């Protein structure tokens, strides 16, 4: 039977010749990941159930990224518990302050995910690695505990929506605009339970950073995962990062899809999502002029080098508008170093931005830029739910790094070509 790309990866990891949508399977995992919020819960359950060892110390990964460097005593406790577990079990891939990064930017960068692999993470944006042609999805704490113990997880095989990308992106339009546009079109449950498979000639127009951003937000359309084909850009990305063998999977030409949606990249304008749902997508040209108090450039969605380059190209020689706080957060130590070497950090600081060590920070209203009542931020993050960045009466407008940087300079929601 013909299978989608996701179904092929799952069949392989379940040791089955084929799988079909709706089937329940048990699949071998290549990596199990948790962070400083979710790992402690899973660790408790792991220990309560009496497990004494992890299935593979190279394949259980913990990243302390949410409330780190620890923002308060509770956060310090969570990090401490994670640290103790990582030490006890000799986890190879434990990332603490000083060498960590935001998990979904860090794992691909460190070569911990390769095409065709199956990954679970106790964090909903684990779907990011679909950009590499891997199957990855977010799960609950019991799943993480079980994955750590046994290296397996069960899955209900998803059906898929096929997104046929055509055309070329316009200037100042990137992956973020594409995914906000798509979510605006299909809604926050438009892909509920399904795979979003991105294909078509437009894929090659997207950089790896664009693809990570798009796959990252598949969950914002309710999807189980988002996935891209393994083309030359993916091969180049993993070339010096992944040394173990990996396999590229392709959807069968006659695979069945629930729906096929064509997205003409050339029609997409700089796009933002207004409060309080990622699906409230609007063209910047229609909402320009909304006053902002803060601009956040970072997160697992848009904190990569390509994102910072775009932001810096706009902020270079300009100043953040009076009354606006612009916070720039490189997603990983490597991104930070590269940005330093390229002079981007200097550009940000000279423009009047605050540049931080990698952290999730403001994305979840944790620290490093929490909003007060009545304040409004433009952010390159992925969720603009009520209270996500702080006070329940604050607002978040989701945007690309280009729009976030231009808005920081303008003091209002703006697109770079208006500066």
């Amino acid at each position, binding site marked *: 039977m013909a299978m989608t790309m996701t179904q092929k990866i799952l069949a392989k990891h379940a040791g089955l010749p084929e799988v079909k949508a*709706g089937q*329940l*399977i*048990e699949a071998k995992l290549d990596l199990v990941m948790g962070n400083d919020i979710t790992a402690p819960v899973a660790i408790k*359950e*792991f220990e*309560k*159930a*009496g*497990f004494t060892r992890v*299935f593979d110390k190279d394949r259980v990964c913990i990243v302390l990224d949410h409330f780190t460097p620890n923002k308060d005593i509770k956060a310090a406790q969570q990090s401490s518990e994670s640290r103790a577990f990582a030490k006890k079990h000799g986890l190879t891939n434990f990332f603490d302050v000083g060498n960590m990064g935001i998990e979904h930017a860090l794992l691909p960068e460190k070569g911990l995910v390769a095409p065709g692999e199956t990954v679970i993470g106790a964090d*909903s944006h684990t779907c990011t690695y679909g950009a590499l042609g891997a199957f990855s999805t977010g*799960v*609950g*704490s*019991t*799943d993480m*505990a*079980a994955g750590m*113990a*046994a290296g397996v997880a*069960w899955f*209900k095989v998803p059906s898929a929506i096929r997104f046929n990308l055509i055309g070329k992106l316009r200037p100042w339009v990137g992956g973020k605009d594409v995914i906000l546009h798509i979510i605006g079109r299909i809604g926050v449950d438009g892909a*509920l*339970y399904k795979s979003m498979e991105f294909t078509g000639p437009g894929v090659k127009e997207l950089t790896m950073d664009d693809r990570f951003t798009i796959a990252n937000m598949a969950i914002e359309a*309710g999807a*189980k995962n988002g996935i891209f084909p393994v083309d030359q850009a993916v091969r180049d990305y993993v070339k010096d990062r992944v040394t173990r063998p990996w396999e590229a999977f392709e959807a069968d030409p006659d695979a069945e899809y629930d729906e096929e949606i064509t997205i003409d990249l050339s029609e997409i304008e700089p796009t933002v999502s207004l409060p309080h749902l990622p699906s409230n997508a609007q063209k910047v040209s229609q909402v320009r002029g909304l006053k902002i108090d803060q601009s956040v450039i970072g997160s697992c969605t848009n904190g990569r080098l390509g994102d910072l380059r775009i932001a810096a190209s706009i902020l270079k020689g300009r100043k953040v508008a009076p009354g606006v706080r612009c916070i720039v957060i490189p997603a990983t130590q490597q991104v930070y170093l590269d940005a330093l070497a390229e002079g981007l950090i200097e550009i940000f600081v000279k423009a009047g931005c605050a540049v931080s060590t990698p952290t999730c920070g403001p994305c979840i209203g944790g620290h490093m830029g929490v909003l007060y009542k009545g304040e409004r931020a433009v952010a390159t993050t992925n969720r603009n739910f009520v209270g996500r960045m702080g006070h329940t009466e604050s607002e978040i407008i989701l945007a690309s790094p280009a729009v976030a940087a231009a808005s920081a300079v303008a003091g209002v929601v703006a697109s770079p070509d208006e500066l």
Partner: protein
Amino acid sequence: MKTTGTVFRYGDNVDTDVIIPARYLNTSDPAELAKHCMEDIDASFVGKVQKNDLIVAGANFGCGSSREHAPIAIRACGVSCVIAGSFARIFYRNAINIGLPIMESPEAAADIKPGDQVSVDFDTGLIVNETTGRSFQSAPFPEFVTNIIRAGGLLNSLKERGV
């Protein structure tokens, strides 16, 4: 594995907040959670539900937050199975992981009325409405899901398998 019981029937989009309201999440003790199960949608549920009874609902059962407290509360009430037209993704995972049997059947969900006697055979996937005599075929659980449920949860089942 088979179960028979009386049905409590609810509609579409029963969310995790009505299954177990957030104000009770300061505990994860199943017995405590059970006292407030379904409270915001059916205050009489806890007083009436008996061991082995079933919950039957429409589409998207368990939508909302990823709290594992929701299936824990339902199981702790003695409910033997939830049948729904469909389940929200994380609830579905969490229910099986903590050992609460769930069955997807839009046909059964549409037919079954409150108070009906319903039996479910988890091995064959056959749902029988004993009150009306009508039966519905749902997908049976694969062996490892049956094992999870029989063991009382994912972690216990892994232990049993000697992991």
